[in-house]
Structure formats: C-alpha cells, structure tokens
C-alpha cells in the first residue's frame, strides 16, 4: 500500500514537471514579445522640436505630449488600457503621422487622442477605439488628414464620437474614414471648417454641426448612418457635392437634416435611398440647387421652412417625392419631379402646370402619428383628391422641368442578377405547359 501510494505521488509529480517544461518555453518568450514599451519616457527624453520615430512594435500609453514634437510611425502601435486618453496633446505644434492607436478602455467620453492646444496636425493614423476617437477642446488651426477611425462592434450608447470638436476654429478635416462610432464628425461652436472627402458609415450621425460658422462641407460620403448630416443653427454653410446614401434603417433617419439653418448653399449633393432625403425645419433663405434626390422613402420634407429656393433639383423614384407643411413661401421652380404631370405649350422646356405637393397626409400624421401605417397605401391618392389643397400652407413648384437636368453620370452600372432569369424561364415554362395541357386536351 505504502509503495503504491508513493508511486502515485511520484507519477503526479512527473506529470506536473512535464506540463511545466512543455508550457514554460512557450509562455515566457510570448510574454516578452507582447510586452509594450512605455511611451511616456521616450517623450520625456526628447527635446522640443525633435522627431520621434516609432519602431514596428507596441508602445503602451497613456502619454502626454507637452512639447512640440514630431512622432512618425513606422507602422508602430500605441496600446492604451488606462482610463486616460492614449495621447494628450497639451503643447501644440505637434505632428503625428502614420501609426496605430488602440484605445481599449470602454468609455464613450474618453478619446484615443485629446488635443487642447493649437497648431497640430494628425495624418494617416489608424485609430481603433472602444471609446471616442479624437477630441479637440478649444484647439485652433488643426489639420486631421487621412486618418482611419473604427469603433467597437457593440452598437448603442457605449460608442463615442469619432472626431469631437468643441469651440475650435480654423480646422481642416480631409480624407478621413470613420466607421461604427457615435457621430463621425461632431462640431459644436467654432469658426471656419473645411470638411472634405471624408467617409462615415454605420454610425449615428455622419456629420453633426451645431452653432458653427463658415462651414464648408463638400465631397463627403455618409452611408448607412442614422442621419447623414445634421446641421443645426448654422449660417452661411456650403454643403456641396456630398453623397448621403442608405440612411433608412432608423425610424428617425434622414440623409441631410437642416434645422434652424439660414443663408446656406446646398448644391450638387447626391441623396439616395434614405428614409427622408432632405429634412428642412425652421430654416430660411437657403439655396437648394441641382441636388439629386432619388430612391428615398420621402424625397424632401419641409416643416415651417420659409424663403428657401429650390431649383434644378432632380426628384426621381422616391416613394413620396415631397411632403411640406407651413412652407408655402419658398421659391420652388425648374425642378424635375418624375411624378409630375407636365404640359409645355410654348416649348420652353418648363411645364405650364405647377407641381403641387399635397400636405394632407403630413397633416393627419402630425396630429395622429399612428396613421403613418397608411403611408403610400393604394387608397390614399383617392382620399387626397377629395380634399382641396390649401395652397397657402403647402409647397409647389411653379414650373417643373420636363426633362431631368444634366447631372454628373452615376457610376453605378447595372449589375446582373442571377436567379431572376432562370426563375422567370421556369415560371413561363409552367405557364405554357399548363395552358397547352388544360386548354388543348379534348373532352
């Protein structure tokens, strides 16, 4: 018995030793390889104006850059697990270029990079964050160019904003690519913004501007967000050549939202496949020119919007082209409406019949939202015709275009759809067999 028991102990010890010897050599070097180098000492060691070149390895944050520096990444990676931003720029005149930042702390109010000083430029950074992306707090003269910011898969309120700017002026935001965050570009206050060629998808709002001055929003693309661009309390903005597409999954979705916007210029935007293409509320003296508004559930919706100009816009294949209420005092003419009845007596290319937007359905759904269930019900046209249109409250195009205006050609080529052809052939085959079989047979 005694011998047997000591043998069991010995065997257990033997197995344990083997396990240790097998596992240890794998575990130790792996840990050594993963061990990131702390970044802060490197920054502390550098003199102001120095260039720090990151190697192709991991560095650990957080770090505060309190002197003008140039940090160039050589595919280097900064990993930050703390509740602080991975990088805080407090001194200004800093240049960050070409590295990856991983912000692993899950807090929507903690950004990967926090900038509180002027004159910096961030380019070609790749930021993966469980919190927010880049915060600018009263930081002027900043350039954010060609960065990629990606948030977590988990949707909802745990996401932060990708670019979050508060009271910052003279900002250039170009060529950034943003996905899965709260707001792509969120700007509150400040003056002079150039926002061009950015791409935001799968976020809440693509572009969100409040109380900003001198905004140039052009050539951006917003796709599959709740709202493409939300512009609120802004004057004299230029919103041109953007693409707002597929904002249609949320019940509050729209391509472009203008609220309390005045004297702005909205032109040549392509607005397709949204729940509401352009939503205009309490906005006045804006020019909406040459926009392409197609395949939206509702093309344009105007509430209490007065004194705006709508011209040369193309409305096609929207379920309902326009809904308007208390928006009679807008100058709308020379737009193309694919559902308009047109009559051109003098050959001017403009219809002599106005296109009148019927406010009936918007009126009843505003007072009883439950009736939205009847949206585009087959019996609605009949009902709408029964009620005379109150021209004082609605929107009407004085002279619609007969032909759609020339717009830049769409790159979308018709794709071949497999399945439709064989299916239709099978259906036709069954039809013909049935007809000949049952019709032709003698009694």
């Amino acid at each position, binding site marked *: 018995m005694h011998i047997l028991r000591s043998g069991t102990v010995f065997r257990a010890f033997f197995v344990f030793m083997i396990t240790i010897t097998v596992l240890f050599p794998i575990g130790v070097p792996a840990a050594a390889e993963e061990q990131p180098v702390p970044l802060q000492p490197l920054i502390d060691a550098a003199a102001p104006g120095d260039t720090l070149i990151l190697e192709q390895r991991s560095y650990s944050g957080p770090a505060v850059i309190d002197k003008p520096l140039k940090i160039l990444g050589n595919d280097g990676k900064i990993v930050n697990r703390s509740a602080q931003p991975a990088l805080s720029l407090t001194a200004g005149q800093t240049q960050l270029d070409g590295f990856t930042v991983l912000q692993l702390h899950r807090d929507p109010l903690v950004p990967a990079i926090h900038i509180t000083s002027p004159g910096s430029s961030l380019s070609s950074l790749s930021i993966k964050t469980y919190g927010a992306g880049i915060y600018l707090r009263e930081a002027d003269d900043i350039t954010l160019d060609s960065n990629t910011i990606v948030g977590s898969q988990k949707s909802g309120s745990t996401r932060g904003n990708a670019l979050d700017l508060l009271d910052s002026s003279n900002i250039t935001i170009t060529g950034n690519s943003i996905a899965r965050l709260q707001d792509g570009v969120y700007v509150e206050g400040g003056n002079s913004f150039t926002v061009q060629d950015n791409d935001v998808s799968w976020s809440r709002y693509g572009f969100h501007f409040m109380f900003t001055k001198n905004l140039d929003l052009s050539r951006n693309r917003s796709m599959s967000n709740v709202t493409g661009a939300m512009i609120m309390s802004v004057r004299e903005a230029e919103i041109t050549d953007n693409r707002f597409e597929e904002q*249609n*999954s*949320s*019940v*509050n*979705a729209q391509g472009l939202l203008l609220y309390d916007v005045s004297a702005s210029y909205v032109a040549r935007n392509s607005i397709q*496949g949204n*729940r509401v293409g352009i939503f205009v509320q309490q906005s006045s003296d804006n020019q909406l020119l040459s926009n392409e508004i*197609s*395949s*939206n*559930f509702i093309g344009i919706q105007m509430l209490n919007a007065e004194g705006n100009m709508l011209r040369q816009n193309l409305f*096609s*294949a*929207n*379920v309902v*082209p326009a809904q308007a209420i208390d928006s009679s005092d807008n100058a709308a003419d020379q737009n193309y409406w*694919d*559902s308009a009845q047109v009559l051109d007596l003098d050959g001017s290319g403009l219809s002599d019949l106005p296109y009148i937007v019927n406010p009936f359905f918007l009126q*009843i*759904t505003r007072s*009883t*939202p*439950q*009736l*939205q*269930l*009847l*949206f*585009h*019900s*087959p*019996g*609605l046209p*009949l*009902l709408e015709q*029964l009620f005379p249109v109150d021209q004082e409250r609605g929107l009407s195009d004085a002279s619609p275009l007969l032909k*759609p205006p020339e717009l830049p050609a769409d790159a979308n080529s*018709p*794709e*071949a*759809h*497999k*399945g*439709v*052809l064989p*299916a*239709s*052939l*099978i*259906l*036709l085959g*069954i*039809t013909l067999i*049935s*007809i000949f079989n*049952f*019709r032709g*047979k003698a*009694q």
Partner: protein
Amino acid sequence: MTRQKAMSMAAIRDMNNTSGEDFLSLRAIQTIAGREIKLGFRNPWSYSFMGLFILFSLALLLIQQQQGLQDYSGTTSAMINLILYLLPLMTLLLGSFSIAAEKEEGGWQLLSTYPIRAAGYVLGKYIGTLYVLLIIVAAGFGISGLISAFTSQSYTWKTYSLFIVFSCCLVLFFLALSLLIGVLCRNRWQALTVSVSVWFFLVLGWPTLLIALLGVLAYPLIKPMLMIMVFLNPAELSRLFLVIKLGGGSVLGPEYYRWVNWMHQPEGTLTFLAAGLLWIVLLLTAASWILQRRRTHA
C-alpha cells in the same frame, strides 16, 4: 353552359366509377379541382386578366428608366400599388364567378343531388381556381422577369422573389374571400357587384374609412384598433409585410418601431403566414357551412 354541365356529368361519372369509400372527400376535391382548372383555362376572362397583368407589369418596368427595381423605392412602391389594384379584383371576380355561375346555370343543383360534401366542393373550387390564378401571376412575372434580365432596369433576386410571394399571398387570401362571396350571391350580377364593392372597401376606400373611423375613437385606442384592422384586411397586411421585408419599415415611424422589428425577423414571417392561414381557413369554413345549410334548407 352545356359544356359546363357536360363536364359536371363527366366529373360525377368519374367519382362513381371508382370503387371504395371517398375518405375525407379527397377524390371529390380532386375531381372538382381538375374540372375547375380545365374550365379556368378555357375561360376567356382568365386570358384577358393574364394579358392585363402582363401589360401593366411591363409598362411599369419600362416607365422606370432611372432606377433598378430594388428595395423600397418609388419604383417598387408603384409596383406594390399596381398589384394591389389589379390582383385582388381579378381574384375576387374569377373566384366568385366560378361558384355564382354554376349556381346560375344549374351545375351546382345537379352536383347537389350527388353525395358530395359542400366542404369538398368549396375546397376543390379553391384549389382549382388557385392554380389558374397562380399561372396568371407566373405569366406576368415570367415575362417581366425575362425582359428585366436583358435590360438595365432589372429586378434584384430578393425583390423579384418577394414580389412573387406577395402576389401569391394576395391570391391565396382573396380567393378564400371570393368563394364566400360566390356562395352568398345568387348569380353573376350579384357576384360582380359584391366583388367590386368589397375590393373598393378593402383597397381603395380603406384609408378613408380608417381615418374617418379612428377620428371618433379615443386617442389610446387608435393604435390597437389600427393593428386589428390591419389583420382583418389581407391587402393591407400583405402590403405592410412586403414593405417591411423590402427594408422600408422605418417609414412607418417610431410608433411601429417594435412591430416592424418583430415582422422583420423570421418570427414575423411566421406570424404573417399564421394570420393568413387562419383567414383562409375561417373564410372557407364559413363558405362551406353556408353552402351546406342552403342545400339542406332548399
């Protein structure tokens, strides 16, 4: 007329020739359905409806030069409404006529003298007419699908299949209703009048009726009442189901956020199918019961 009667006779002969008990009237159903299919394919009405359906689906395809047929857009919504105008009316007329005509011409009286149960008769009629109607749908989608495959404004596979399912559902639901109308009406004139009124009530006048009715209801009752009404109208239920499956559910607004999400999932499909099946079973049962009652009381 004489041909119909002759066919009825032939049908009865078939049944009598085969020996053994007709369990659950399966053989009667089969015979009546077969006869209905033959009659349907010799009925000029079927071909004019088929022509109409093909013509309109093609016209719509050709008018929309701008966009392909995909998702919920102006093109697909116009298509939905066109189908809702045409298909229920076609179904109601063909279905109610198939029974009303036989009553008018004496075919039913003749059949009544034989041991065929009313349920078997109604079910046979349902299956037979259904086949003819589904072939009309197949012809319409076959030709428009074929043409769309060779032009730029093509269907996506998802849209195409959803539209076919939508059309078939409309036919299934409205055919059950049409047979009840046929049973209730004495002749074709009556059936025509009732069918058109029912179509107007369920398709064209529906929003007017609902808005008028809900205007007098207390505010909290509006939504539950609307939901009940939707499930009572197969045209509206099918339309909303298709809109949601095409990804257009968000247009119904925050009020229906949860319902739309539910319907978008497979469980929603099951709910829709169960509601549809219940509708068909109830109407066919009512039709057979009334027919049987009138036969025994006549």
